[in-house]
């Protein structure tokens, strides 16, 4: 019957598809072992998007010293990292903020001991478009702007343009830190919130991009994202204080008003590889990497 012969190609196609698939599978699982060194389980560092590039730089440098140890770095926000360290699903949590009461409670209830290490310092810079005439603002002015109470640049000596607010997502450590230290004047609880009209950008990089191409924009992110494409504002604590530009020295000395420690959270007293990584991170070599990624070394 001719029909059977004509139909063979379809069976063949199906068989070929499956064969190709299984070949791909096996090639890939061998390739997996080749591409990643040793196939050993990776150490997981999870958390702050602000710190993710720093974390990755540390991971790569550490891997050069200890090629048999693989360190995986994922972002997701400080909240995600802290949740993971409490759940036991990561080894080190990177965080740009301290633990909240809720999280401390959660740890106590579960009997988990969380160890905190300050690994670097960070300044939160406020940026505008390079063409914006405004160069300095007080903390109160920033508060008014980001709460949406003042809506045009002319109020601060700028052009008559609308102010476009760029913010991070609600669970970002940077968002929370800015809210507590700028909007709520240092208190962790309070009614002050970002204006509803603030655009919630997916990352510090997205804020940088939009600021670079939008004359109306104002945004904030960590010191590590400074680039010549945005104009960095100097911030003064109040009307009487001088406006301080964010630099490594001013953040370390505390003269720059919006600065924060960056943390590694680990479980229990750190031991083994985790302790080794912590030592590396705090060593002169590790701190040099901090400086190289535009954060502030702690010494």
């Amino acid at each position, binding site marked *: 019957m001719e029909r059977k012969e004509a139909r063979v190609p379809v069976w063949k196609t199906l068989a070929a598809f499956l064969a190709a698939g299984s070949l791909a599978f096996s090639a890939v*699982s061998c390739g997996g072992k080749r*591409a990643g060194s040793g196939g050993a389980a990776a150490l997981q560092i999870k958390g702050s998007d602000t710190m993710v590039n720093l974390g990755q730089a540390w991971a790569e440098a550490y891997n050069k010293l200890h090629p048999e140890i693989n360190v995986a770095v994922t972002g997701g926000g400080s909240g995600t990292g802290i949740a993971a360290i409490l759940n036991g699903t990561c080894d080190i949590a990177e965080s740009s903020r301290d633990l909240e009461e809720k999280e401390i409670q959660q740890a106590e209830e579960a009997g988990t001991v969380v160890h905190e290490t300050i690994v670097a310092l960070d300044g939160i810079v406020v940026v505008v478009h390079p063409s914006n005439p405004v160069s300095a603002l007080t903390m109160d002015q920033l508060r008014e702007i980001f709460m949406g109470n003042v809506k045009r640049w002319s109020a601060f000596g700028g052009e008559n343009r609308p102010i476009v607010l760029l913010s991070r997502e609600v669970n970002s450590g940077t968002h929370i830190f800015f809210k507590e230290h700028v909007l709520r004047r240092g208190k962790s609880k309070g009614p002050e919130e970002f204006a509803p009209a603030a655009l919630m950008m997916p*990352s510090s990089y997205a804020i940088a991009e939009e600021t670079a191409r939008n004359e109306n924009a104002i945004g904030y992110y960590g010191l590590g994202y400074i680039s010549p494409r945005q104009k960095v504002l100097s911030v003064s604590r109040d009307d009487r204080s001088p406006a301080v530009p964010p630099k490594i020295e001013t953040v370390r000395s505390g003269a720059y008003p919006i600065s924060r420690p960056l943390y590694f959270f680990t479980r229990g007293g750190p031991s083994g590889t985790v302790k080794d990584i912590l030592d590396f991170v705090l060593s002169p070599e590790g701190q040099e990497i901090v400086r190289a990624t535009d954060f502030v070394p702690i010494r």
Partner: protein
Amino acid sequence: MRRELRGQKIGFGVLLLATLLVVIPVAAIVALVIAKGWGALSWEFLFSMPRDGMRAGGIFPAIIGTVYLVFISLAFALPIGVMAAIYLTEYAKDNLLTRIINLAIINLAGVSSVVFGLFGLSLFVVFLKFGVSIISGALTLGIMALPVIITTTREALRSVPDAYREVSFSLGASRWQTVRHAVLPRALSGILTGAILSVGRVAGETAPILFTVAAFYLPNLPTGLSDQAMALPYHLYVITTQIPGIPESFRYGTALVLIGIVLIMNVIATVVRSRASRKK
């Protein structure tokens, strides 16, 4: 009459304009992605691991992750989908149950992709404790692919003339034997088409894998079902919105690979479909 003819010319002109407004942007987008992304395509880009914070090297883990997800989701969805379609065309009676099943399929097809992600998170990741893993992501994607497979298989089965079934029955075969030997072989190419089309659909989805499997960066390739994985659509999202310093050609290149996979699948499906219809 001339007025009507002029009216017709204007009317047809409007229709043509509308069609151009659809066709030209499509061509422009594809051309743009190819133009700016082609330069990035190299052996290294496609087959090596990312380096330097994903700004250099390649996107191999994302490609492999997507391949894994597609294969496993289809391994789950194909058998169930084909059998469901067989039920609907060969066994089901015209009763309330059948109407409800059809309604459910339409509904499943229309559920938002991010709702699938929530479902996958709560059922597979949390409730069944599979965690954020390939199996969670693949099962979620499989359920998403189910309506496509059922619908295309159903069409393929329906297109087999009843004569074949009647002859088989008259020869004393049971229902299942009829399906297995008289109907299925002739519907096979249609089923294959559906499977290939759903590959394209599943490969491009981001929202369902956001909370079920996707990882920002993994130093190793996944080795098992319980591992996390990188995936092409999520990778494109990440390098577009979250990482500074990525060369533009990398972004367009990743988009090109993604579109490429989907388009190649569509082309293969079309070829299979046309070869089958030519035989008939």
